[in-house]
C-alpha cells in the first residue's frame, strides 16, 4: 500500500496537455459543416424532436434557417423559446431528448446533430451581440427571483421582456448556477456561462445581487412583503452523504465541489487529483467528475455504481464518453467502508449487489479497490431554509403546470421542484413559463396589460 501514499497532487501534466484536455469537447461547426449537417434535416411535420424538447424549440425551422444561410434567424427562433439556448446546446443530453426523437435514427441510426447546429446559430448571434428581444414599456411591477441559475435567469429575462423589473438573488459569488459551477469544463469553455449571463442581462431591467442567501440574508416572507411576485429557482444545494465509515478521511470529497473547483480554477494544474480515483454514483455528475479526474492526469479512475448499466442515469452517450477517456465503469458494487492510512484514503471496500425480488440487496461478497481519492456523486438534495410553510413533496417544492407554488404570488422552477427532470433545459422551461404565468396574473388582476415585445 505504501506506493500509493498520498497521491493527491496537482501539476501532473504539461501545460499543453491541460490545454488539450480541457478544450471544447465538440468544437463549434464551421459554416460548411453546419450546412452539411442541416441538409440532413427532413423538416418533419409536427416534428418529434420539437416535442421532445422541454422548451419546445422549433427545431425544423431553425435548422432550415441555418441551411438557407440565415443563422441569425435561426438564433431568434431558438432564443424565442429558450434564452439559454447557447448553454443548452452545449449541455443538453440531446441523445435522450431531441436527437433521440430524430426520425433519422430509424433509417440510419444517426440523428441530425441538433445540439451542434443549435450551438452554431446561437454562437454566431452571441458573438455578434445580437439582441432579438426588447423590453416592453415599464410595468411598474418588481419581481424577486431567488437563484441565478438557468430557471431564475430564464424567468428574469422573460419578465424583463414584459416590462417588469427583476431583482435576482444568488448565494454564490457569480450568477449562472450550475451553468457556472456544475458543468464539466470541456462543455462550457471560454467562460461561456458568464458571457451568457451578460448576453441575457443586456435586455435591461434585471439586477443581480450575489452573495445573498435565502434563509441567511432574507426570508421568503421578506420577499413576498416587498415584491409583487417571487420566483424560486433554488436548485439543489445539498449533497447526499454515504453514511459509512471513513467518510471523513482526507481525500473524500463531493463530486460537485470538485467539478465547481475545476470550473473556477484559472489554471487547471492547481487542481489536485489522486493517482487512483474512485467515483461513487451513476449519474451525469459521476461521469463528469470521473472524466475530468482522468483528464487531470489520474492514472486509474473507476466509477462504482450500485446498480446495473441500464439503471444508470448517465446516458449511454455519456458512458461511452467516459469509457473513451479511459474511465472504468463497474456495476453492482455498493460502498461499505472507506479505508484509511494516516488519516487519508487508501482504498474502498465495496459489497457486490444484486436485484432480488425487485429489491437491491448485498450479496455478502466483498472487494477492495485501492485508491487515494473518493468522490461522492450519489445525488443532490433540496436544502433551503426561510421558506415558511411552502408545500413540499418528497423534499421538493410542489408546483402546478403554471409553476405556481402553494403560496399566492410565489412561483418556483427547476431542480428544486417536484416537476420534470433535473435538466438545464427543463429549468429554463420552468423559468420561462413561470414568467408568463406571473405576467398573466398581473394582467388578469386588472393591472394595465403590457404587450409582449
Amino acid at each position: 500500500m505504501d506506493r500509493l501514499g498520498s497521491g493527491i497532487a496537482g501539476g501532473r501534466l504539461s501545460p499543453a496537455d491541460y490545454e488539450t484536455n480541457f478544450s471544447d469537447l465538440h468544437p463549434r461547426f464551421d459554416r460548411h459543416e453546419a450546412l452539411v449537417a442541416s441538409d440532413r434535416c427532413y423538416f418533419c411535420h409536427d416534428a418529434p424532436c420539437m416535442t421532445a424538447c422541454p422548451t419546445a424549440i422549433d427545431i425544423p425551422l431553425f435548422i432550415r434557417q441555418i441551411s438557407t444561410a440565415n443563422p441569425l434567424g435561426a438564433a431568434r427562433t431558438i432564443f424565442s423559446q429558450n434564452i439559454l439556448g447557447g448553454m443548452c446546446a452545449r449541455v443538453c443530453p440531446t441523445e435522450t431528448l431531441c436527437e433521440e426523437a430524430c426520425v433519422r435514427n430509424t433509417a440510419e441510426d444517426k440523428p441530425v446533430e441538433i445540439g451542434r447546429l443549435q450551438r452554431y446559430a446561437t454562437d454566431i448571434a452571441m458573438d455578434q451581440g445580437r439582441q432579438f428581444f426588447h423590453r416592453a414599456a415599464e410595468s411598474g411591477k418588481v419581481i424577486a427571483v431567488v437563484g441565478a441559475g438557468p430557471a431564475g435567469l430564464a424567468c428574469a429575462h422573460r419578465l424583463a421582456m414584459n416590462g417588469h423589473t427583476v431583482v435576482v438573488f444568488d448565494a454564490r459569488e457569480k450568477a449562472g448556477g450550475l451553468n457556472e459551477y456544475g458543468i464539466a469544463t470541456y462543455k462550457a469553455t471560454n467562460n461561456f456561462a458568464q458571457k451568457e449571463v451578460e448576453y441575457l442581462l443586456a435586455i435591461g431591467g434585471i439586477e443581480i445581487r450575489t452573495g445573498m442567501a435565502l434563509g441567511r440574508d432574507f426570508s421568503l416572507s421578506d420577499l413576498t412583503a416587498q415584491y409583487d411576485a417571487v420566483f424560486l429557482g433554488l436548485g439543489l444545494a445539498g449533497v447526499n452523504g454515504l453514511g459509512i465509515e471513513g467518510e471523513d478521511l482526507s481525500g473524500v470529497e463531493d463530486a460537485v465541489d470538485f467539478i465547481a473547483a475545476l470550473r473556477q480554477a484559472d489554471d487547471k494544474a492547481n487542481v489536485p487529483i489522486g493517482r487512483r480515483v474512485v467515483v461513487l454514483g451513476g449519474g451525469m455528475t459521476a461521469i463528469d467528475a470521473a472524466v475530468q479526474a482522468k483528464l487531470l492526469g489520474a492514472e486509474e479512475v473507476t466509477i462504482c455504481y450500485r446498480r446495473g448499466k441500464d439503471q444508470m442515469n448517465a446516458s449511454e452517450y455519456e458512458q461511452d464518453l467516459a469509457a473513451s477517456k479511459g474511465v472504468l465503469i463497474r456495476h453492482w458494487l455498493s460502498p461499505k467502508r472507506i479505508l484509511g492510512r494516516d488519516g487519508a484514503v487508501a482504498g474502498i471496500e465495496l459489497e457486490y449487489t444484486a436485484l432480488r425480488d425487485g429489491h437491491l440487496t448485498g450479496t455478502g461478497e466483498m472487494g477492495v479497490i485501492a485508491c487515494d481519492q473518493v468522490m461522492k456523486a450519489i445525488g443532490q438534495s433540496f436544502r433551503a431554509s426561510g421558506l415558511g410553510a411552502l408545500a413540499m413533496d418528497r423534499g421538493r417544492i410542489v408546483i402546478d403546470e403554471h409553476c405556481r407554488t402553494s403560496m399566492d404570488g410565489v412561483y418556483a422552477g427547476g431542480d428544486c421542484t417536484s416537476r420534470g427532470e433535473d435538466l438545464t433545459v427543463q429549468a429554463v422551461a420552468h423559468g420561462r413559463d413561470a414568467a408568463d404565468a406571473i405576467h398573466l396574473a398581473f394582467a388578469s388582476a386588472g393591472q394595465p396589460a403590457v404587450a409582449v415585445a
Partner: protein
Amino acid sequence: MADIRNNFVGIKSPNPFWLASAPPTDKAYNVERAFKAGWGGVVWKTLGSEGPPVVNVNGPRYGAIWGADRRLLGLNNIELITDRPLQVNLQEMKQVKMNWPDRALVASIMVPCVEEEWKAILPLVEETGADGIELNFGCPHGMSERGMGSAVGQVPEYIEMVVRWCKQYTRMPVITKLTPNITDIRNPARAAKRGGTDAVSLINTINSITSVDLDNFAPIPSVGGKGSHGGYCGPAVKPIALNMVSEIARDPETYGLPISGIGGVTTWRDAAEFLVLGAGNVQVCTAAMTYGFKIVQEMISGLSDWMDEKGHRSLDDICGRAVPNVTDWKYLNLNYVAKAHIDQDACIKCGRCHIACEDTSHQAITSMVNGVRHFEVMEDECVGCNLCVNVCPVENCITMVGLEPGTLDQRTGKIVDPTYANWTTHPNNPMAQVAAE
C-alpha cells in the same frame, strides 16, 4: 456480356458515350485524356470561321445551382465557341483521330448563315479525317446575338437551308444540334430532316440566369457587376431533354430520324433512359466537368451490367423501347385506379407525406391514429396523385398500388372497370367522339 458498341449514322464507337461539344473537348490534351479514360467519342468544341478567333470574357463563365451537400445540379455558362485559331484545332483533330482510330471524332461547326462560309470550312474539316459534323444551332448566348447558334436554331427555314448546304458540300454525316429555346421542338427537327440531315442531337443549353448576387444585385456569373443569360445544363435539365427527345422520336414526320441524346446525363441510368426514349447514343458534358473523365467507367459498367441483368444483348435491343409508351394525355386510361400505400416497417414517421397531402392535396393521409403518431393512407380520399411518394425521404416506403379490376374504389364508390377508356370518349368531354356504330 452485353455488346454496347455503337453505330450512330455510320460513326462507330466502342460505347455510346460521347463527350459533347464543350470545354472538355476544346483541345487535343483534353480529348486524349478523355479517350484514355474510355469515352467512346467526342464532339470537338465548336469551330468558327477562319480568321481572328472569338474572345471570351476573362471573368467568371459559369454559374450553378446546388442540391443537398452542395451537389451540383445545374450549371450555366457564357463561354463562346473555341477561341483558338481554326488551323490549330484542325491540326489537333487530325492528330487525335490518327491516334484513336476506333473512337468517334465529330466536329462541331458554327459559322455565319452564308453559303460561302459553310462551303469554305467543310473541306477543311473533312481533311482532318473527322467522322462527321455537328451543326451548332443551339448555343443561346453570345453567338446568338451575332445571328448564329440558337438564332439559327429558332428559325426552321434557316436550319433547313444550312443543312442542305452541308449535305451538298460534304460527304460527312451531318448531325444537327437543336436548341431547346423554342416552343415546339418538333418544328426544327422536321426542318432539319427536310434539309436532309442524317441525325439531330439535343438538347443544347437553356437560356438561364442561375442566381443573383443580392449584395450587388448582379446576376451570377457576374462579370464586373453585370451578367448575361447563359446556357443551362446538368442534371436539372434532363427531364426537359427527355421530353424533347421523345417528342421527336414519336413524331410521325421525324420517326426513325437518329437522335443523339444530350442533357444532364450523369449516370448510366440517365443514359439508358435517353436510349430507350429513342436516342441512338448520348453526349455528356456537365457530369465530366463536375467529376472528371473517369465517370465514363461507371456509365459503361452500369449500362452493360443492367443490360446483362435484363438480357439485352446489344444497344439495338433497348433503343427506342419506351417510345411506344409515350402518348398524349388524352389517351391515358381513365379507368386505371391506383392508391398510395405506406410500408409501416419502412416508415420513419417524418410526417412529410401527411403535411404535403393535408396542406396541398387531398387530405388523404393520417397523422395520428388512436393518439399515436401514425401515417396511413385513407383510400376513400386518395386520388392516387403520387405526391406523397415523391416527398417521402425513404425510397420505396410509399408505393402506388393499382387496384385490381372488379374491386371497389372507396373514393368513388365504383367498381374498377377492366376496360380501357380515355378522355376522347369520356362523357364529360364536350368534344367526345361518339362511338361509330
